[in-house]
């Protein structure tokens, strides 16, 4: 049984939705002037890993290995989020709570953890619905699929440039390159 085209559209819609989360991160960085911390950047990388897994589905068809890639990237990114949540779980009296602004009462790293958990849950649902495409299969993506893939690639390039402008080629600390 072949996979329904609707499933591929949903896959691309997920790719677009996750890309918009990264666009939101850029809004906080450049719109609100909140410099991303190293853990924030690592969480963005986790999301890019998930996007690569979704892109593999787009380019080569659904495979269990791609689902494993998505779950693995979400677990890595989720670990970074949980680390940051734990760093701020017990606020010091008189000091601002958390790092950066809150959205609907939760900081961005908490939202990131929710995104990664949702990704894992969504992948579990997808695994129940998809059939493995034959080995060596190459899909012909639709215009929407290609658009979502190119947008995710563009965001990856944008993140590389933004990080280079913030920290140069080396490691990042709170407000730029590490001393």
């Amino acid at each position, binding site marked *: 049984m072949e996979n329904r085209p609707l499933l591929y559209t949903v896959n691309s819609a997920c790719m677009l939705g996750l890309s918009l989360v990264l666009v939101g991160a850029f809004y906080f960085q450049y719109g609100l002037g909140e410099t991303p*911390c*190293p*853990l924030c*950047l*690592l969480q963005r*990388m*986790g999301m*890019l*890993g998930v*996007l*690569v*897994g979704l*892109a*593999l589905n*787009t*380019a*080569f068809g659904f495979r269990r*290995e791609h689902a494993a*890639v998505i779950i*693995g*990237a979400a677990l*890595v990114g989720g*670990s*970074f989020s949980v*680390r*940051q949540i734990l*760093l*701020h779980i017990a606020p010091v009296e008189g000091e601002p709570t958390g*790092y950066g602004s809150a959205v609907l009462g939760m900081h961005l790293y908490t939202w990131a953890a929710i995104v990664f958990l949702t990704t894992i849950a969504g992948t579990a649902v997808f695994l129940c619905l998809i059939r493995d495409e034959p080995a060596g299969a*190459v899909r012909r993506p639709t215009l929407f699929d290609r658009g979502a*893939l*190119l947008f*995710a*690639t563009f965001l*990856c*390039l944008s*993140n*590389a*440039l933004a*990080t*280079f402008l913030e*920290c*140069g*080629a*080396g*490691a*990042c*600390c*709170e407000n730029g390159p*590490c001393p």
Partner: protein
Amino acid sequence: MAFLFLSYLATFACVIRGRRSAALAGLALSTALSVAMFFHHTTSGLELNF
């Protein structure tokens, strides 16, 4: 950390060019480097309380 994003970008390029094995290898490398950077930041002794 910009080079880490570049490694993800190279992975995307492999996907677009239809090189699945290279993309999987690139993602594995990128993820490993991200985890290494995470441990560098958490163990480097810098005051990285964020």
